[in-house]
């Protein structure tokens, strides 16, 4: 009898996740913390209330989008380490357009999103162009572009004319550009009264619950459609599958590379826009990378480069990040255990051979 789960990518992913959590538990035990207590604090911190769930989704939203970005590029044979930089330019663009270009809400939100997508897209296509035209490895060029984006962001944010006095951030975006649910109404007397009467909604309104998650799901569906139902998607996948065969088949590889990176960049730019318009409402000076790009890489890997997989993996990672943020204040275990768990999961996903071997030994033992 063949169990389809056992040898599939999904099976390997699930086993990797379990192994990652197991290694995390061992390390917690080794450094003197009770892993059961730590994991139950985390679980309670994720599912304990509607407010926690809302936060989990807010944490997951940007990394679902950067995950989609990395996954899209992967499908076409490119490794987009540049999601981080594309995210930064997207977020910066959103903060600037959201404050300096007043518009009615119905126009402002789409305008901000489109501007950020364009900015991220341009940033991504630089790497695509350098690869197509000059053969520059996209791994290296996107890493450089990440740092250039970081300093570009700081250059704008710290500019005397742009920065909000007394801060190291831009001015908060206008209400019309926010995608936070009922952000103005929920603070009004009407809203307050409603919240008092409905504790469930009050719980949600205490967080910046926003439309970002819906946008991310929409983006996942769009990516799925592009990859599976369009000529563009077909030719991009063909290039990713076998470059030479694709070229022989009449597909222009160079333009494919550029459009693939442009779309991937657009998705990461959108991640930045969603984070700014839905949560931070500003772009701030960065001392180091925030990590959304690298987290996106893990999301793409855990999600097996499948758009729906990315949504689920992003939720998982978001939950781990938000739930994990509670173990330090509650039981004192270092927050970095989360990075170790993620790293271990990614490492196991990289080694399907090991997991298959473990299954074979198990079978032998059973016999």
């Amino acid at each position, binding site marked *: 009898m063949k169990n389809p789960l056992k040898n599939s990518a999904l099976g390997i992913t699930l086993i990797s996740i379990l192994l990652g959590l197991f290694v995390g538990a061992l390390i917690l035990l080794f*450094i003197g913390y009770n892993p059961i207590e730590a994991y139950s604090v985390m679980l309670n911190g994720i599912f304990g209330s509607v407010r926690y769930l809302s936060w989990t989704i807010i944490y997951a939203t940007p990394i679902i989008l950067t995950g989609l970005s990395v996954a899209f590029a992967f499908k076409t044979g490119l490794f987009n380490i540049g999601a981080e930089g594309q995210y930064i330019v997207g977020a910066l663009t959103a903060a600037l357009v959201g404050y300096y270009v007043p518009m009615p809400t119905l126009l402002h939100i789409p305008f901000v999103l489109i501007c950020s997508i364009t900015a991220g897209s341009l940033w991504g296509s630089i790497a695509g162009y350098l690869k197509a035209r000059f*053969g520059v490895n996209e791994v290296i060029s996107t*890493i*450089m572009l990440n*740092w250039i984006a970081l300093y570009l962001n700081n250059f704008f944010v710290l500019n005397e004319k742009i920065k909000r006095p007394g801060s190291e951030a831009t001015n908060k975006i206008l209400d019309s550009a926010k995608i936070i649910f009922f952000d103005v109404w929920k603070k009004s007397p009407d809203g307050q009264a409603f919240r008092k009467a409905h504790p469930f909604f009050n719980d949600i309104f205490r967080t910046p619950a926003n439309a970002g998650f819906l946008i991310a799901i929409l983006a996942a569906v769009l990516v799925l459609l592009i990859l599976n139902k369009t000529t563009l998607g077909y030719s991009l996948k063909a290039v990713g599958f076998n470059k030479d065969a694709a070229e022989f088949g009449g597909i222009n590889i160079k333009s494919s590379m550029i459009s693939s990176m442009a779309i991937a960049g657009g998705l990461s730019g959108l991640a930045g826009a969603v984070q700014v318009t839905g949560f931070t409402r500003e772009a701030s000076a960065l001392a180091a990378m925030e990590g959304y790009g690298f987290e996106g890489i893990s999301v793409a890997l855990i999600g097996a480069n499948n758009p729906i997989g990315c949504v689920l993996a992003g939720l998982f990672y978001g939950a781990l990040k938000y739930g994990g943020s509670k173990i330090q204040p509650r039981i004192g275990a270092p927050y970095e255990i989360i*990075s170790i768990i993620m790293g271990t999961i*990614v490492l196991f996903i990289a*080694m399907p*051979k090991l997991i298959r071997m473990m299954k074979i030994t198990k079978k032998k033992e059973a016999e």
Partner: protein
Amino acid sequence: MLLESIAFLLGTTLMYATPLIYTSLGGTISENSGVVNIGLEGIMFMGAFIGAAIGYYTHSGWIGFLAAGVVGGLFGLLHAVACISFTADQVVSGIAINFLGPGFALLLSRLMFDGAAMTLPLPLDEKISRPLNGLFPQNSFFDVILNRYSTVYLAFFLVLVVWFVLYKTKLGLRIRSVGEHPEAAATLGIDVYKIRYMSVIASGVFAGFGGAAVSVAIVSQFRITLISGQGFIALAAMIFGKWKPQGAMWACLLFGFAQAIVVFMPRTGIEVSSQLLSMLPYILTLILLVVFVGKSVAPSADGKIYEKN
């Protein structure tokens, strides 16, 4: 005034290039044997922490430096096990290392330094020594350039060693043959796995040194933003240096020079945004990659999975 500026620029170049040289030598060894290691960044991060932490507790920058090499080697071993024995995708395994290195470093830092994400600073006399101190009159031209921490001279010496090993010894020939054509090397009786294991572990040791070269020489403690991308820059330097130790060294020096200009400009009184200036090393790399490298010349089996039959 001009001489002083030149001396300052050259001296600062040496200082900033050193950690990159260690790490890019590591990358050079590993990739010549056919294993891509983008985990160098994470290993360097770990090395910086281990160097500073062990240095602090043993009161010796050198012990810290060596310990960083050992722990770096362990991370190299992890990458080797994943990539060589379990045929992992090398880039993905490298990404995992980049999570694990900083993860473990910060976790240990919080345990060893009372919850802080930084170590306590080493006293000046416990840092890596400056052997040429006092040889030249203080702040003279040669003093500013050459009076450096021992790690600086060691880095250049190791460039020579790695070059010699790779191109003048049997072992080097084996490393390169395994990176060019593992199947052919195997038919000649070379143990591909063994050579690759050694090379990847060595790359970890070097990246560990690179991290410690920052934390116990250039500065005297580990901080969370200390490495920020230097491992990746070293990787770029290796590619720009065409996978050769001497090439990587020149590329690192160029980076160091760009970084020296960033530090130097404010002293000249010329008004340039420090943020824009900070982009210089990265923009320079992109331009150089476009102008000089073109189609890559990596070892032909670089990054490809090899499985014994």
